[in-house]
């Protein structure tokens, strides 16, 4: 039996209050560090083509699945440090950790690489905990989680060899990569500490640059806390030709996989040529709020979801 809306919203009040506090702390964190808060369109004629992120269409345009391209166009125009909370839309993503519309926090910093951005993330999250009355440790779903940084880093290669028994850098098998990630690799992460997974196989670089000296891997990192995939960071790719070629491959794969024609984001590709060295990250705010509210489901931290419209 569905819970009555009035009761549901009343029950969520403590979580929604905490959510608002977390927004305040995040804004304060970035403003102290001279980041500029920006807003970019949630509806655009072209977005980053991603084989496994299905966008919603709005007439001939698309709803943003991430604000990344617009934020990088600002960086290319000389803005040095940017952050944004934005509504993002991804079709078909619904479950305990997913709602098709969700809030992403993204920030970008000129001169930083992916590990520099991970350090920002550690500081940001460790700064929120005491403001909410926690020491360095929170309890999430019955497990104590120590947020003291630095958080353990492990390469994708080592994590897969350890938990799944194969090397995804040597063997390019993206189906097995995804299935094993969910059933073997992620469950093996320590529940007591955040885990930073670094150096993804080059075919999964997306918008990250390849590692200088080891082009088999990309400078991409992901943060996992309490079993939740929280954030994805890159040393941003600043080679326009390479970016265009990766996007063309993605467009081709999307056409094959789901029969959809995605336009190339030309204005972005043009801007990549002027991008300075920079790093950036996308962090799922709803999941961060889940952690700090000890919430089992994303529905417990959002006032309205796809099932409570």
């Amino acid at each position: 039996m569905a819970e009555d809306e009035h009761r549901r919203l009343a029950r969520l009040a403590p979580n929604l209050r905490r959510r608002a506090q977390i927004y305040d702390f995040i804004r304060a964190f970035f403003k102290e560090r001279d980041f500029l808060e920006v807003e970019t369109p949630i509806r655009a004629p072209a977005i980053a083509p991603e084989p496994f992120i299905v966008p919603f269409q709005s007439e001939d345009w698309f709803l943003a699945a991430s604000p990344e391209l617009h934020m990088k166009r600002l960086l290319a125009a000389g803005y040095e440090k940017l952050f944004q909370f934005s509504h993002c839309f991804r079709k078909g993503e619904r479950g305990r950790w997913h709602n098709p519309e969700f809030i992403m926090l993204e920030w970008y910093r000129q001169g930083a690489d992916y590990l520099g951005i991970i350090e920002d993330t550690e500081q940001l999250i460790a700064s929120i905990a005491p403001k909410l009355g926690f020491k360095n440790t929170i309890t999430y779903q019955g497990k104590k989680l120590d947020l003291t940084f630095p958080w353990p880093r492990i390469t994708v290669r080592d994590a897969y060899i350890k938990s799944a028994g194969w090397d995804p850098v040597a063997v390019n098998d993206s189906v097995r990569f995804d299935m094993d990630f969910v059933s073997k690799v992620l469950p093996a992460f320590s529940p007591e500490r955040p885990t930073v997974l670094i150096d993804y196989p080059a075919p999964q670089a997306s918008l990250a640059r390849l590692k200088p000296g080891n082009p088999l891997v990309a400078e991409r990192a992901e943060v996992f806390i309490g079993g939740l995939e929280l954030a994805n960071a890159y040393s941003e790719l600043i080679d326009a030709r390479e970016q265009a070629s990766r996007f063309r491959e993605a467009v081709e794969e999307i056409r094959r996989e789901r029969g959809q024609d995605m336009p190339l984001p030309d204005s972005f590709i043009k801007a990549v040529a002027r991008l300075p060295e920079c790093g950036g990250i996308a962090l799922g705010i709803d999941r961060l709020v889940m952690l700090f509210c000890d919430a089992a489901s994303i529905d417990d931290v959002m006032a309205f979801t796809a099932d409570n419209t």
Partner: protein
Amino acid sequence: MEISGVRRNSKILIDGALYNVEEAEFTKPGKGRSVYRLRLKNLRDGGIIDRTYRSGEKVEEASMNTEEEQYLYHEGDQYYFMNTKTFDQHPLSADLLGIKKNFLKEGMEVVMLMMGDEPIDVTLPITIDLKVIETEISTKTATITPQMKSSIVETGYRIDTPSFIKVGDVIKVDTRSGNYVERVSTGK
């Protein structure tokens, strides 16, 4: 059907065996494929299995129909129901009924889920009124938080009730959890 359409309590067939989806969990690495983890209950032997599917995979949806039936009686661990139109009798085992077997009263109307001619499961009302036939004598005096004690209702089911419940009272029971909800009327 597409795996993305599977929900909790969907009925699916795997290698000819009928399963109820007890849990359906959607998960997805941000840049990766959607993965669906199902916990499935075999509706013939009650066994539980876990299966993992990725987006785009298909599962065979079981075609089900429902009939209005009446509960008759039980013999050993078989519980008999009768179709109110055709008068066909259908047994269900205690294993498949699970907690529901505790709330069946003779003559009570239920909805029988059928796959072809085979009875699969019954749907009960969310709450049911049952008479208390036995209860502990409460020794506690009234306090602000109600004391709980053990009582037995007419179907033989043992249930925790507040201490003020007496033999002959009729109480409302949640058939999903088996928990006491409220007192409906007092016995003499």
